[in-house]
């Protein structure tokens, strides 16, 4: 049990550090003109926080016009701060990305922010300093940082340090087109969402946090890095403590009930653990299964726990395994364990496959070498894509209610779609439960298969390949 816990803690702390590089999913190729924040959290009944349309939307604009339903609210710099139309895509993106505040229903918990920038070094403060409203947009700026839609951004340009009030309606996002130099002309190279702050007549751009995706997903290195304890990190902590409590209490029970039949949670988990041992570890790892079993169990239960945590609607719906950074770390762990335990025959098979003619080797070696990296990459992407797709589908099904009821205008549409969407959502949640188990299992079994391939003894006869 101690090995299990150590492995757990190690994986978890690396995942925490890596989730600092989690990129913000907050961009799509469509414009963000209709970027409404009808936040249901993950309440899948039609329990509304007065969010039907904008009728009950108490959104005092100090920096813009009085807000009429159905119209965009534009602040004094000309940036749209509150969109008239409901945009389910943007809402879905917001719900699957990491946040610096933890929203549980109507309750908003501020989380510690640990930010590092080249100018000011490391800063440590609570995101409560931003005084965020329900949407996670702050009404205060602190040390040139602002909170917009749950994520910390850094103000670029001239701005006073310390706590500065910016009021409502000061922050908005603009979909800007990026231009590229091509044959001497400026050519459109896609759109990027830039957050702007409007303060005392100045329009200042705000940077997103640095991500390690090298611009592939619209991220990249920016002026600051965010090491905060975000929603994902808090969820990982909670799942860690829950799992530790569960497994440690079961370990204690085994000692107490030595020689007796397992009882209660002990029986349930014994079934699962023995299943992993007999169906995953032993067939794939041969006689070395005991050495790798704790690692496989950690992988399985950590992923399962995080998947299930994200499925519960009343706990803020944190999408932990649906964040590339967490799955990246899990894949890195699998990669390290596989390759650090690779024996001579494994490396021989990668670089110099025995038994094939030399000219095939020139093709096979680069392919096999790439395969060493691509296999963990697919592990990472499979888990990320499955869980994120599930979360997005959830949010979209609930958004259907708002779309069909035209944000509160059509009552028949509202009732009809609530019933239909409710049933659909329940059905999808059942599937997502299955997916949670299956993805954890698939990750584990593939990791076991890779480790088995790396540690396999040489069985082949000379002429067989």
């Amino acid at each position, binding site marked *: 049990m101690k090995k299990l816990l150590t492995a757990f803690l190690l994986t978890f702390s690396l995942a925490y550090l890596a989730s600092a590089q989690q990129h913000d999913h907050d961009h799509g190729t469509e414009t963000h003109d209709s970027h409404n924040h009808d936040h249901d959290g993950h309440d899948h009944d039609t329990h509304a926080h007065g969010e039907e349309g904008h009728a009950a939307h108490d959104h005092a604009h100090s920096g813009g016009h009085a807000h009429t339903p159905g119209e965009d609210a534009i602040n004094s710099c000309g940036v749209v701060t509150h969109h008239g139309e409901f945009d389910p895509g943007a809402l879905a993106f917001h719900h699957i990305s990491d946040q610096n505040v933890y929203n549980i229903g109507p309750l908003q918990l501020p989380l510690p922010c640990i930010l590092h920038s080249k100018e000011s070094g490391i800063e440590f403060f609570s995101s409560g300093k931003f005084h965020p409203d329900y949407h996670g947009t702050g009404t205060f700026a602190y040390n040139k940082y602002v909170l917009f839609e749950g994520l910390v951004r850094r103000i670029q340009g001239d701005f006073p340090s310390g706590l500065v009030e910016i009021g409502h309606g000061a922050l908005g996002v603009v979909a800007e087109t990026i231009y590229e130099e091509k044959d001497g002309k400026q050519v459109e190279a896609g759109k990027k969402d830039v957050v702007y702050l409007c303060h005392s007549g100045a329009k200042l751009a705000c940077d997103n946090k640095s991500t390690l995706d090298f611009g592939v997903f*619209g991220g990249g290195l920016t002026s600051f890095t965010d090491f905060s304890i975000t929603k994902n990190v808090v969820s990982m902590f909670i799942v860690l403590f829950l799992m530790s409590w569960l497994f440690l209490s079961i370990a204690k029970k085994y000692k107490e009930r030595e020689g007796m039949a397992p009882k209660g949670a002990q029986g349930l988990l014994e079934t699962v653990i023995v299943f992993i041992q007999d169906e995953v570890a032993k067939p794939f790892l041969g006689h070395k299964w005991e050495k790798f079993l704790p690692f496989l169990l950690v992988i399985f239960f950590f992923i399962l726990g995080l998947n299930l945590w994200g499925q519960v609607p009343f706990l803020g719906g944190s999408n932990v395994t649906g964040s590339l950074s967490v799955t990246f770390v899990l894949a890195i762990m699998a990669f390290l364990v596989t390759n650090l335990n690779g024996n001579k025959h494994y490396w021989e098979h990668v670089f110099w496959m025995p038994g094939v003619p030399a000219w095939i080797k020139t093709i096979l070696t680069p392919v096999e070498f790439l395969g060493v990296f691509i296999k963990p990459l697919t592990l990472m*992407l499979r888990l990320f*894509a499955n869980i994120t797709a599930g979360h997005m589908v959830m949010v979209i099904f609930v958004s259907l209610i708002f779309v069909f009821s035209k944000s509160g205008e059509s009552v028949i549409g509202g009732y009809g779609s609530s019933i239909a969407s409710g049933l659909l959502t329940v059905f999808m949640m059942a599937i997502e439960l299955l997916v949670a188990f*299956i*993805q954890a299992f*698939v990750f584990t079994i593939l990791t076991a298969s890779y480790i088995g391939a790396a540690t396999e003894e040489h069985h082949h006869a000379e002429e067989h390949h």
Partner: protein
Amino acid sequence: MGGSVAALGMGLAVIGAGIGIGMIGSRAMEAIARQPEAVGDIRGNMILTAALIEGAALIAIVFSYLVR
């Protein structure tokens, strides 16, 4: 034009997944019909293989949306 090409890519990826999982399903049904007592083993392996194919399709879907 960029948006619709991404949607096209997603649709193509799902075609591949649909065909693959359909084939697994049909072979699994045949296997169960041949040997009904192996239902447990067959069902487990069928779900596992379907998950792997699904993984590839979902990777394609997610990438076609996020990468520009």
